[in-house]
Structure formats: structure tokens, C-alpha cells
């Protein structure tokens, strides 16, 4: 079961994990990722997306993960709109009989989502000015690991 949702509401990871973990007897491993807004020099984020295409692209990433590893279920919830420090931006969960598949599928979807889902982020600085976040080369490198056959250990 693959599920994707884009929402302007706050994401409650605790509640999502409760629901996601309540599955069939074959699940032996659940891996989750939550990305949250950091504070410091950034006082707020604003996320914009391409409705329809975002869900379609993330769905395709999950199907690709499910074809590579034997996952039982996957879920992605991505928030858009105004997001404050400590609030959750994105949630990715993957379950499987064994941990290797769950870890790989979760990280794979997250790495693809960062560079391949039509979402754009801008940050508000302490002076109240907004700046578009630039795509990072390192995110492309992480995505490309998955097609190289060998995953270099991250340092």
C-alpha cells in the first residue's frame, strides 16, 4: 500500500507513526524519516508545490522503491505553505518484513523527493526578507548513488 498526501496542516509524526505501524503480521521493520524546519537564522519557511504533479512524482518514486525492495507499505506526507522552526516539513515511512528493505526504501524515496518532486522552498531571514532556497549539488549526488549500484557510505 503506497500513500501520498500534500497538506497545509501541521504534521503530527507521532499520530502518523501510530497509524502506519498498525499493519499486518508480515511487517517486521518500520523505518521513518521526518524532516523538520531548523531555527537559528531562518525564522520561517514557505513551501510551494505543483498540485497533481507532486503527488504523481512522489507516487512514482514509491512505486520504484517497491519494485526494488520488498516493502509492505510506504507513506509520504509533505506539508506546504508557511512552516515555522521545529515544525515538520515531510514524513516518509516504509515497512517491510526485514530492516534492510525498509531502510533502503525510506532513504531512496527521500533522496529522490529532494530533487525530483515539484516543491520549492523559500526562507525568511531574521530581517524578515524572503529568499528562495537554491538546489544543492550534494542532494543530486545522493540521488545519483542509487543508480550507481554501489552506495558510498555517507561521511
Amino acid at each position, binding site marked *: 500500500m503506497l500513500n501520498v498526501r500534500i497538506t497545509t496542516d501541521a504534521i503530527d509524526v507521532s499520530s502518523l507513526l501510530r497509524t502506519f505501524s498498525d499493519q499486518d503480521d508480515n511487517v517486521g521493520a518500520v523505518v521513518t524519516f521526518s*524532516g523538520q524546519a531548523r531555527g537559528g537564522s531562518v525564522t520561517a519557511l514557505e513551501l*510551494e508545490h505543483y498540485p497533481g504533479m507532486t503527488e*504523481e*512524482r512522489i507516487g512514482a518514486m514509491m512505486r520504484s522503491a517497491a519494485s526494488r525492495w520488498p516493502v509492505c507499505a510506504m507513506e509520504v506526507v509533505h506539508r506546504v505553505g508557511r512552516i515555522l522552526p521545529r515544525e515538520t516539513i515531510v514524513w516518509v515511512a516504509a515497512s517491510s518484513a526485514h530492516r534492510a528493505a525498509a531502510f533502503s526504501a525510506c532513504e531512496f524515496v527521500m533522496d529522490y523527493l*529532494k530533487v525530483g518532486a515539484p516543491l520549492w522552498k523559500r526562507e525568511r531571514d531574521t530581517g524578515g526578507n524572503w529568499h528562495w*532556497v537554491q*538546489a544543492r549539488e550534494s542532494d543530486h549526488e545522493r540521488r545519483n548513488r542509487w543508480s550507481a549500484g554501489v552506495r558510498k557510505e555517507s561521511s
Partner: protein
Amino acid sequence: MKIRFFANLRELLGTDELDFADDNFPSTVAELRAQLRTAGDEEFAAAMADPNVLCAVNQRVADDAVSVEAGDEVAFFPPMTGG
């Protein structure tokens, strides 16, 4: 036919979509890119000229050679920065 813009392109253009006469089609992504530079001010033209700007045709990222017909859903946007 409408063409959609996201993020800094939307902001610079001051709107999230442009009406583009159907007699501009069939065309290619490359031709649309060139034509659209004059749709806004100089800053918008400069942003559109950035080779990193992506085009999606019918919600799939499409390179410059892809052809575009009237009725297709076309959008331009900068590199994606979700997550």
C-alpha cells in the same frame, strides 16, 4: 493555452499562469523557452535564460527537444527544493 510558472518565475512574472495563443503550437520546449523570455521584465528574462530552469509537459519533466501541442499542460520552474 495556459502555461504555468512556479517559485521565483511566478514571483518575477507576477502571475502563476500565462495565456499563450494556440497558434503558437505545435512547438518545442526550446522554442517556448525563447518566446517566454519576453513575457515579463528583464529580470524575468534573465531567470528564464537560466539553463537550470525546468519544463514539465503534462506533469513530466521534459528536455528542450520535446514537442508541445495545444492542449498539453506546460509549466516552467526552477530546480526543485522540497523535503
